[in-house]
């Protein structure tokens, strides 16, 4: 799926540019986007190093396990394959909480860490497991309580009530997250029927 979309975007882009004489822009885009990718990753280093360092302390001291036990009832339903005492649970919980408060920067390292643990649980295979797909669905649907960036932009353009969209955002985010979980379950049962899991 990713392979097809990736190739399609590139090939269609190049062919379209050939027909419409925008090839110079395509050339520019290749190098600019590549640079953007590297810059983005380098920008991640500071946050990753700091948060992974902090979270290592939380993991070793047992704080992470303690924390996740609060949310165990809901999470064990969502991730039936993850043992409740497993560090993966702790990372999943902290990632979800960071996302809720619009702390995308803090959420990313925690999410990656959760993925790493889920991969270990799946015997280190390079195939996405059921729990990984569920976790990704939770993240892409973006459970948000405080959309900090958007509020900042609304203030910039002189909104009379920059925070008035918070309520709607919470309603919509609940809808998308619920939908993501349901869709994820649907695909899981479809895979199971087809004998692929």
């Amino acid at each position, binding site marked *: 799926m*990713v392979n097809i979309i*990736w190739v399609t*975007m*590139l090939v*269609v*882009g190049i062919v*379209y*540019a050939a027909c*419409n004489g925008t090839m110079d822009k*395509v050339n520019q885009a290749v190098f*600019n*986007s590549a640079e953007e*990718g590297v810059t983005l*990753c*380098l920008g991640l*280093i500071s946050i*990753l*190093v*700091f948060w*992974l*360092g902090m979270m*290592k*302390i939380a993991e*070793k*001291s047992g704080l992470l396990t303690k924390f996740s036990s609060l949310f165990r009832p809901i999470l064990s339903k969502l991730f039936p394959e993850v043992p409740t005492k497993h560090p993966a649970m702790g990372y999943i919980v902290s990632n979800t909480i960071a996302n809720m*408060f619009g*702390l995308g920067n803090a959420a990313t390292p925690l999410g*990656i860490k959760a*993925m*790493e643990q889920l*991969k270990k649980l799946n015997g280190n295979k*390079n195939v*996405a497991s059921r729990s*990984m797909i569920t976790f990704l669905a939770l*993240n*892409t*649907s*973006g459970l*948000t309580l*405080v*959309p900090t*960036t*958007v509020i900042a*932009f*609304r203030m*910039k*353009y002189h*909104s009379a009530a920059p925070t*008035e*969209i918070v309520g*709607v*955002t919470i*309603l*919509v*985010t609940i809808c*998308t997250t619920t939908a*993501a979980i349901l*869709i*994820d379950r649907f695909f899981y049962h479809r*895979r199971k029927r087809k004998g692929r899991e």
Partner: protein
Amino acid sequence: MAIITALSIWIIPILIGTILVYGTYKRIPTYETFVDGGKEGFSMAISIIPYLVGMLVAIGVFRASGAMDMVLNTIKPFLSIFGVPSEIVPLAIIRPISGTGALGIMSDLLKQYTPDSFIGRLASTLQSSTDTTFYVLTVYFGAVGIHKTGDALKVGLLADCVGVISSIIFVSLIFGR
């Protein structure tokens, strides 16, 4: 509202404080453990580079060639039938593909229609209620070396569709059109 804003400023420092105090209480060599964990962060960031570069170049080429605008213009009338305002269509489509791209479009819509208009509110809600599916997929799976992504992309994109539909419904209901 003030409570939520205050909470988001306090949560990180409180978290750091709690981790350090609890670690010390449990007699963990805090500084060494921190350095140990931090080292992983460096190699992790480097390992994501190829995934992100590949995805961003594809999106960049698709957009710069003009193909993206063509696709947007083709499906605009189709989506209008279902009550999707045509002004919001580019944002709805780019939202799952590029986070910074979507932020740019939202900023443009807020400027053009004012933040307190129907389009402005809808754009704000749409931007804040979902995440960049492609980015999350690339970074999370890329960092741990997952090559076969299964149904993950399909699930993410379908959830994004639900996000667009419910944004339109809720913004219309709560603020009126």
